[in-house]
């Protein structure tokens, strides 16, 4: 039963990204689409591993994953906007033609988006922690650290000069 709940949720997550990807495909470059795919896959992997690490009960899974879905939908959109704003800011700096007001507006927008992302992430964690046992909360903290560190280390490993990229 847990597997079914998990799977339905993961399919839901991926559908969200599919729709986001279709929406974005007409207006965003290939790199943006790739980022959408990457995020979808990262979130799927994270959800799969988190379920195993926390050993969620059916009841917990049924409560947590719909909220995870909602949070992810909102955060994915915010991250997409943030990536666009960062790209715009880079372009403004490179062009050397932007005014102080334009820089200020760009910076403000980025700060606002970051704040919203963090707030949404925090809100989900608050919700999650209200449904977990102390041991599960402890596992979640360690899991998050290790998973996120693994993401960065994987990127660093692939960037090493000796690493063959096909």
């Amino acid at each position, binding site marked *: 039963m847990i*597997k*079914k709940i*998990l*799977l339905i949720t993961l*399919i839901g997550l*991926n*559908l969200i*990204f*599919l729709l986001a*990807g279709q929406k974005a495909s007409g207006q965003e470059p*290939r*790199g943006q*689409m*790739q*980022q*959408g*795919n*990457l*995020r*979808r*896959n*990262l979130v*799927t*992997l*994270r959800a*799969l*591993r988190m379920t*195993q690490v926390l050993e969620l009960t059916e009841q917990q899974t049924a409560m947590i994953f719909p909220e995870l879905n909602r949070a992810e939908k909102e*955060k994915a959109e915010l*991250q997409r906007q*943030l*990536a666009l704003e*960062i790209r715009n800011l880079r372009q403004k700096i490179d062009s050397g033609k932007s005014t102080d007001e334009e820089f200020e507006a760009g910076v403000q927008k980025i700060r606002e988006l970051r704040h919203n*992302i*963090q707030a949404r*992430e925090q809100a989900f964690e608050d919700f999650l922690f209200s449904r977990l046992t102390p041991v599960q909360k402890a596992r979640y*903290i360690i899991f*998050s*650290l290790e*998973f*996120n*560190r693994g*993401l*960065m280390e*994987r*990127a660093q490993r*692939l*960037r090493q000069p000796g690493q063959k*990229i*096909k």
Partner: protein
Amino acid sequence: MKCTHYQKLISDRMDGSLSPASQKKLETHLKTCRACRLYEEELKGIEAEIRKLPAVEPENLAVLEGELRERLVRVEAEKRTHKPRSWGLKLAPALAAGAFLVMVALYLLVFNRPAERDQNLDLASLMSFEDSYLALTQTLNSDERLNEVYNEEILNSIFEEVKDLNLEELTYPEDYQEQTIDNDVNINLLTEKSGLSEGL
């Protein structure tokens, strides 16, 4: 032989337990050693003083024994409190200062190197998936091929997880199967049709 040995012989002679041969050696030594002669005179003086003391009655022996035991306990306690400082204690301030310097050096070497400082900052952001994701995408954006390879690795990890979950009996909507095409991987994540078994 040293004087300490002859002083023991002096004590034995006063007790009447010295052999004739040892007594002869002692006599020879005393003729030439003033310190031992003084030691013998001192012992004889103590013995004379003791002999002047009144004899102890048998019934007072128990009291005397009790007093002696109490004194012994006090002496032992005083010894413990006035124990001479060992080399370790004498060197304690120097050792503490050395340890402090080592700790400062370790801090500077291990925790305060610029590269490590960056990693410590990462640790704070590693608590957040969103912060990590943002840092990751900024890294991967600079290299499209790296981005693709990275994504493929993540997909492979998902395959491994799904294989462990043994989900093959479930079915999936068509549009979910289509979405993976974006990854240039002509397989579907979670179905047997995907060729997952061959891929792994």
